[in-house]
Every structure is written in structure tokens, then in C-alpha cells.
């Protein structure tokens, strides 16, 4: 791995940790547990499109690990929820990019939808609560606009990065 690429990836991880922490501190006014914008996913998508699947996975996993460490919830339930969501969403995003003709918007929607699914699965396992399933439809519906939003931002970032090179 070249030093420049390594530096860039480090920067991406730093930015995504920042987004993650901002999102964790400012709760959204919408009273639905589990709903958030997924700003940190912008960075994951940028990593996926700038480099490759491996970089995206490492950026996302490092982000969850370090951000949880900073918030002091490492290995607490909240950490496992994040980890489960981020793993499923990254894998789905990678598969979607590799195997289908979806653009960055579709990939972003897929990853945000499966983040929700991953989190609901994690809640079901950790708390043995099947009731979270009652929130799955509304969370899935909301994941589409948030996915489009993150896709839009990632698209803009990528456009500007590519013109600068």
C-alpha cells in the first residue's frame, strides 16, 4: 500500500468518526427509535468508489470501533447494534456495486435499507425483543430518503475529488 493512499484512508476514517460522533450526540426530532441520517455512510461510499471494497470495509469497521471507544460504549449493546448494521450494510453495498448496474444512489439506498435490517436483527438477538419488527416497515420506508440523501452527498464529493486530481 502506498503511503499516499494510506494517508487518504486515515483521513477518511477520521472524517467518518467525526460524522458518527456528531450524529450520536445530536438526536433527531423524529420520535422513532433507530432512525438517523447515516452521515457516516457518505464517507463509506466515497471510500468504496474512490478505492475498493476492502477499503470501505476497513473504514467502516474502524469507524465503528474507534467511535464507540471514544463514546465509551465499546462492547456495550449500542456497539453491537452499530457493528451489525454497518457490517450488513457494507456487504450489501459492495455486492450491489459489483453485481448490479445500480448507480451510487441505488447503492446508497441498499446500504441504508440493510443497515436498518441489520440493526433490527441485532436488537432481536441482543434484547430478544421481537417487537422491534413492528418498527421495521416505517424504518425501511424512511431509509430510502436518507439513502438518497447520503448518495447525493457522496456523489457531489466524488465529483469534486475527481476534478481536483
Amino acid at each position, binding site marked *: 500500500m502506498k503511503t499516499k493512499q494510506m494517508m487518504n484512508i486515515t483521513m477518511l476514517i477520521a472524517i467518518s468518526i467525526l460524522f458518527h460522533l456528531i450524529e450520536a450526540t445530536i*438526536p433527531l*426530532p423524529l*420520535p*422513532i*427509535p433507530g432512525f438517523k441520517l447515516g452521515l457516516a455512510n457518505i464517507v463509506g461510499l466515497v471510500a468504496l468508489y474512490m478505492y475498493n471494497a476492502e477499503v470501505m470495509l476497513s473504514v467502516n469497521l474502524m469507524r465503528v470501533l474507534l467511535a464507540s471507544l471514544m463514546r465509551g460504549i465499546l462492547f456495550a*449493546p449500542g456497539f453491537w447494534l452499530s457493528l451489525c448494521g454497518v457490517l450488513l450494510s457494507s456487504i450489501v453495498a459492495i455486492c*450491489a456495486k459489483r453485481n*448490479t*448496474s*445500480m*448507480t451510487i*444512489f*441505488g447503492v446508497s*439506498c*441498499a446500504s441504508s*435499507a440493510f443497515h436498518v435490517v441489520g440493526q433490527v436483527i441485532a*436488537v432481536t438477538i441482543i*434484547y*430478544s*425483543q421481537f*417487537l*422491534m*419488527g*413492528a*418498527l*421495521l*416497515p*416505517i424504518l*425501511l*420506508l424512511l*431509509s*430510502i430518503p436518507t439513502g438518497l440523501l447520503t448518495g447525493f452527498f457522496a456523489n457531489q464529493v466524488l465529483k469534486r475529488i475527481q476534478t481536483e486530481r
Partner: protein
Amino acid sequence: MNKADKIFIGLVVISAILLYIPLFIQDSQNKHKQKAVVVDYQNEEILRVDLNKDETYRVQASLGEVQIEVKDGAVRVEKENSPYHLCSIQGWVKDTGRPIICLPNELVVQIEANETGEDDVDTVIQ
């Protein structure tokens, strides 16, 4: 956005609606039944009260005391200790399909329909 994107979004919306249908059916079936407020802590029922009786209840959960208010056929979590207070922000709930879930407290407040239904009225014939 190309065709594949739109197909995927359509699939997600359809699956969300399909997942909602059983909840909706259950809710409409329960509309005219007697309802009870059920509070679960760590997946065990700790409180079951009548929805039509206005009162405030206190229960102990993981992060301390939780106040649950029942009024005018609706229920809400009035006061609780949790990082974002999502369950108290959620406000009043009066149908069976929407549980109030407070994960930090491991508490679930839910409205359930009594199986006996409307026929279960005590009558005394003299």
C-alpha cells in the same frame, strides 16, 4: 438514477408495505376489543393495567424509575432516564400496532387487546 436504482427502491417500498399489512390487520381487528396496557421489562411482563383507567404508574427499569401515564384510552412514557429520551418524545400511543420501546431501559410498553373482547362484561341477574 437509472432503472436498477428505481427497481430496488420499489422493492424496498413494497416489502415495507407487505411487512406493515399484518400489523394493520391485527390493529383493525382489535379496534373494538377491550384493551390493556402491558409493560415488559427484560422480556417479562411486570405490569398489566386497563387502558380505560386514567392513572400514572411507576416501574423500575435498568436506568431507574420509569413513569407511565394512562389517560383517555392512550398511554405514554412520561418520565424516564435514557440518553435521548426517545420513548418519552414518542408521546401518546393508542393502537396495538405501535409499541413504545425504550432499549436503554430494556422496557417495552404495549397495548394489547384482551382475547375475551366486548362480551366480557360482568352482569348480575337477579
